[in-house]
């Protein structure tokens, strides 16, 4: 199997993946390529910048690939994600699945994209043509929701303004869960 980084700072290419010829038991390939679009919520987008916390992102993408491969019994699942500045129409993510039958290939590829978008520590900053920019609001991956700030007595001088909110995984997810 080819070894490559799942988080890449150069242009993404399908050439990086193992060839289908290495999987003669497969009868289908599903590929998703996510690209940068020129608008978001009515504003004109000039460019995007993706950042990642790569030590965790690399590990999580590989774990997701393996879990999906096992779940759908497919032969090959890979996802690569771009970081850095991207222009409109540049590729931001590629997911690929090889399977014996089309349905499993579709399912595996779709779930791989969804999980990487919503679970892996990668962030998207949008730069608009009006000169403004912002981080796209995303999915909270915090799991220790009972340990809110100031909920324990370990500090000698706790904050008086502290909030005691609780939330569950994905509660703060504000973007749509689609393949865009």
């Amino acid at each position, binding site marked *: 199997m080819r070894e490559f980084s799942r988080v890449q700072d150069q242009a993404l290419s399908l050439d990086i993946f193992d060839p289908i010829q290495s999987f003669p038991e497969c009868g289908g390939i599903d590929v998703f390529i*996510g690209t940068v679009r020129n608008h978001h919520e009515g504003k004109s987008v000039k460019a995007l910048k*993706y*950042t*990642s*916390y790569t*030590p*965790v992102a*690399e*590990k999580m993408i590989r774990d997701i690939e393996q879990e999906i491969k096992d779940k759908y019994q497919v032969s090959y699942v890979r996802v690569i*994600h771009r970081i850095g500045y991207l222009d409109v129409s540049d590729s*931001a*993510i590629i997911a690929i699945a090889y399977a014996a039958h089309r349905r499993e290939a579709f399912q595996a590829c779709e779930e791989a*994209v969804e999980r*990487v*978008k*919503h*679970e*892996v*520590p*990668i*962030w*998207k900053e949008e730069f608009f043509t009006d000169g403004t920019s912002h*981080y*796209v*609001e*995303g*999915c*909270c*991956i*915090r*799991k*220790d929701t009972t*340990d*809110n*700030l*100031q*909920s*324990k007595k*370990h*500090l000698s*001088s*706790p*904050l008086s*303004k*502290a*909030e005691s*909110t609780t*939330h569950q995984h994905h509660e*703060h*997810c504000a*973007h749509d869960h689609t393949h*865009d």
Partner: protein
Amino acid sequence: MQTIEIKIEAFGEIERLLPKPLQFEFAKESLILDVLNHIVDCYPDATKAMDKCACAIGEDIVTRQTVLNSSCTVVLLSPVAGG
């Protein structure tokens, strides 16, 4: 009292709310929760964003109850939005 040096690396939304570089000295065996509380004490504007952050050390996601026995970098992971 033995102390350890904790560096903070921030990603996503919270990165815009905290200065760079950011590091503190803490007593050995402090919790990550203590570190986060100290940060929002110093930078209250980051309180809401901090509540949404997961934390990591190296390649592991860790809980707020993790005990810090040695100097390290605590990474703050804001809600994610890849793809």
